[in-house]
């Protein structure tokens, strides 16, 4: 799942001399002054040749970036304070190998790599977060100093479009509210849980959102479809997590975040009501992510 590729055309590649290139230019000036002063035709010739060589190397410099396309992968969320990750895939669609391509986000250091013909490379860009909520992706820039290090070809800023999400930082400690038996009649009757910890009682069909941890792979191999091992649960409990009514909103969200994480870890089925439609009790990574995202985006919906 990626956004449409952005391909570097001629108008989006620029050239500027590097610092070495400027030194090179200064040397040329010295050569030219000497040629003029001594009226030395050979010195003139060498000066002009050097200048032409450096100028013409710009075509190779430009071509090194042209036609590269930048695809965007799915960004990885993280908690506030830890870096989220944006994923960029750089594709060389041509038969021309590319050398010394550097990808640099707006802030932070770049990464340099070569691309063989028709090769592509995935680059993860860590991005520090300070605030909870959606993280605007950085703009990235491709550049290279190929072939002689005298010129630097660089692309325009390429905006990434898919924002990452910074979850609220979990509070260090937040006790879970007391659970109550699941209202789910079927579950109650069976007295089983999808989570581990109890005695194995049998198999049931996998429900969407359930952890794949307990899939009975032998049953899958036997062609009976995706079955889940059920265990008689000490842990078969259900909690509803809600925003505490008073306190600093960020602090409350942090506590809630901790509760969500603990509930998931301890094998609860948990539901979440903050605002809007409640998330019905469930468990598993997808449910966890949904809950954390709701917390991350909470402020936006209130204001």
């Amino acid at each position, binding site marked *: 799942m990626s956004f449409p590729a952005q391909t570097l055309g*001629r108008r989006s*590649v620029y*050239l500027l001399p590097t*610092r*070495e290139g400027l*030194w*090179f230019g200064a*040397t040329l000036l*010295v*050569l030219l*002054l*000497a040629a*003029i*002063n*001594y*009226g*030395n*035709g*050979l*010195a*003139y*010739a*060498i000066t*002009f*040749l*050097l*200048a*032409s*060589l450096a*100028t*013409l*190397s*710009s*075509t*190779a410099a*430009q*071509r090194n970036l*042209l*036609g590269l396309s930048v695809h965007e992968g799915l960004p990885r969320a993280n908690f506030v304070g830890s870096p989220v990750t944006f994923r960029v895939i750089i594709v060389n669609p*041509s*038969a*021309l*190998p590319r*050398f*010394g391509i550097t990808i640099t986000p707006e802030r932070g250091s770049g990464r*340099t*790599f*070569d691309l063989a013909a028709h090769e592509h490379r995935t680059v993860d860009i860590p991005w520090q977060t300070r605030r909870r909520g959606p993280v605007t992706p950085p703009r990235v820039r491709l550049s290279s*100093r*190929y*072939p*002689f*290090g*005298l010129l630097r070809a660089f692309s325009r800023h390429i905006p990434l479009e898919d924002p990452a999400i910074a979850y609220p930082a979990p509070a260090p400690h937040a006790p879970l509210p007391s659970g109550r038996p699941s209202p789910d009649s079927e579950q109650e009757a069976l007295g089983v849980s999808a989570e581990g910890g109890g005695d194995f009682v049998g198999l049931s069909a996998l429900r969407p959102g359930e952890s794949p941890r307990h899939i009975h792979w032998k049953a899958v191999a036997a062609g009976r479809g995706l079955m889940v091992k059920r265990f008689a649960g000490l842990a078969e409990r259900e909690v509803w997590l809600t925003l505490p009514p008073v306190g600093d909103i960020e602090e409350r969200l942090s506590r809630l975040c901790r509760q969500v994480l603990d509930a998931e870890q301890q094998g609860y089925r948990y539901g979440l009501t903050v605002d809007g439609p409640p998330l019905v009790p469930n468990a598993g990574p997808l449910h966890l992510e949904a809950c954390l995202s709701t917390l991350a985006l909470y402020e936006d919906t209130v204001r």
Partner: protein
Amino acid sequence: MKTPSAREAGPQALPAILVALIACSFVPLITHLPWWTWAAAALFVAWRAGGLWLRLPSRTLRWVLVLGVTALVYRRFHTLLGERPGMSLLVLLVGLKALEARSQRDSVILVLLSYIALLGSLLVHPSLFIGLYALAFLVASFVTLSVISQPVGLSMRRRWRQAFILLLQAIPLALIAYVVFPRIAGGLWRSAPVPIGQTGLTAVLRPGSLSDLLSSRKVAMRVIFHGTPPPKSQRYFRAYVLAATNGRVWREGPPEGKVGRSRGQPRRRYTVLLNPTGNRVLPALDWPVDAPRHATIMAGGVVRAQHRIRHILRYRLESAPVRRGSLAPAERREDLALPSDLDPRIVALARRFASRGASPATIVHRALAYFVRHHFVYTLTPPAMGRDPVRRFLFHVRAGYCEDYAAAFATLMRAAGLPTRVVVGFFGGEFNPDGGDVIVREWDAHSWTEVWIGGVWRRVDPTAVVAPGALHEGVGALRRLLEERAGQSGSYRSWWGTFRHQLRLWQDAATTNWDNWVIDYNARRQAALLRRLGWKNAGLASLGIVTLTLGVLVASLLKTLGGRTRRPQDPALRAYGLYCGRLARIGLARRDSEGPRDYLARAVAARPDLDLQMTAITAAYIEARYAQRSAALARLRLRVRSFRPRAQPPRSVRP
């Protein structure tokens, strides 16, 4: 992949090609700089190369070394400015820079310093060979830059190829810049390197002074005659007129005297390309009519430039065969002066020539006849002449080189009462059919005499009388004999000799063109060339503007054209395109909206006679294009090649 840790921590090994490049940039200078600059620079580089296991000098020690080498250079030259001290310092500092180089940037700076060193060699000897050397050097330097900026990923072969192709592209561009870039006459701060190791004519003639030049092939000047060149026997280029003698040595007389005017026919017009001599002499054929710019005609009819000649100099002259004027009494005394201790036998001999009221012409004739009658010999290696060279030459040795003949003859004529002087210059030269010019080498140095007869100075060349063959045709042969004696093998008549001679002529032609278009391409030559190309009045400002415009134009063109990459087309598509084109020619063009199948259906409806072929081609195309089958591609190509639809279907099939 790159290892960032190696780049940051500690110095890495210098790329081998960089070390080689630095060495190459200094090789042409080796003989011009003190040996210890090399030794020290090599030591520093070796220290650096061994630095991976040897401890590299600390920062303080490096500064001490910098001060140390500067002091050494100062002690040797007593200055830090100027070519040789500057280049010595450059060599040492490059060595030190190599010692401390640790980053990519330092390596690039080393490359840039090597360009400056190359410039030094270009200034010292701007020859064709150095030009080719510099060209190769530039390619190597770009390979080095490539290695520095992209240490891995590319093969060396690929780098060399890239740099070489770049050079081929750069040459036309540089050529345009070379032609149109405005040349500033006179330079910026008016100092030019003094050519090193000049030999050549001197203003003093003593036994052996010219025969020393015999072994020098070095080109003294090139003469391009406008119109037919005079025959070799008439090509006397005068450089010095020597009037004062002490019996052994001839020197220039006092500078007074009338200049006179050149007269007579035929006039010769010619251009001289004079190699730098370090003195002010401009050799000229016979009697120049007018002095070239920044030069004057002196009393003896010889031309002197205002400044010492440090670059190749080009000057145009017109010469006449005689010069009219009068001989002032003081000059006459000067041209008759003889040392007081002149041998009486010489005086007696001269009296015999002048006896019975002989005319000046008769005196000259008798003297020359004396040489012939007594079997005087022309030799390239005359024996030592001792303290009284003229007496010894005339009465004992009777063999000598041109300087001996000229000195003896002038002494005899003076003793006989004819004002006479010795002239030193060049004789003959070799006509080069490839360059169209006459090449005058140092071994063409010659001396002869001029005798005042009938109100003009008449040229009398006693050597030509004694050894006409040697001087006019056989000089080359004599020289080859000399070369053979010097240990070079091969007879000059052999095909090898001929071939070598031809090679030398080609080489000389190339050198002439080189001198014309590289060494001597100055403001005047530039204007002349541009005028010939149809651009009149190209001034400094307009040339500058044109250069700038061209530069901007090239830069912008590169920006727009440079990135154009050829899109590799699918071979199946190309073949199918050919097929569509052929159908279009018979009025069945494919519409933009039509896929291959729709197109086929419409084409078959219009031309059922082509059904079979078209169906096969379309099927092969679809298979080749979308199923990527190479067999289908081959089939498609074959079918398309033989698909030649006629505009009208054959009658029998027409419904």
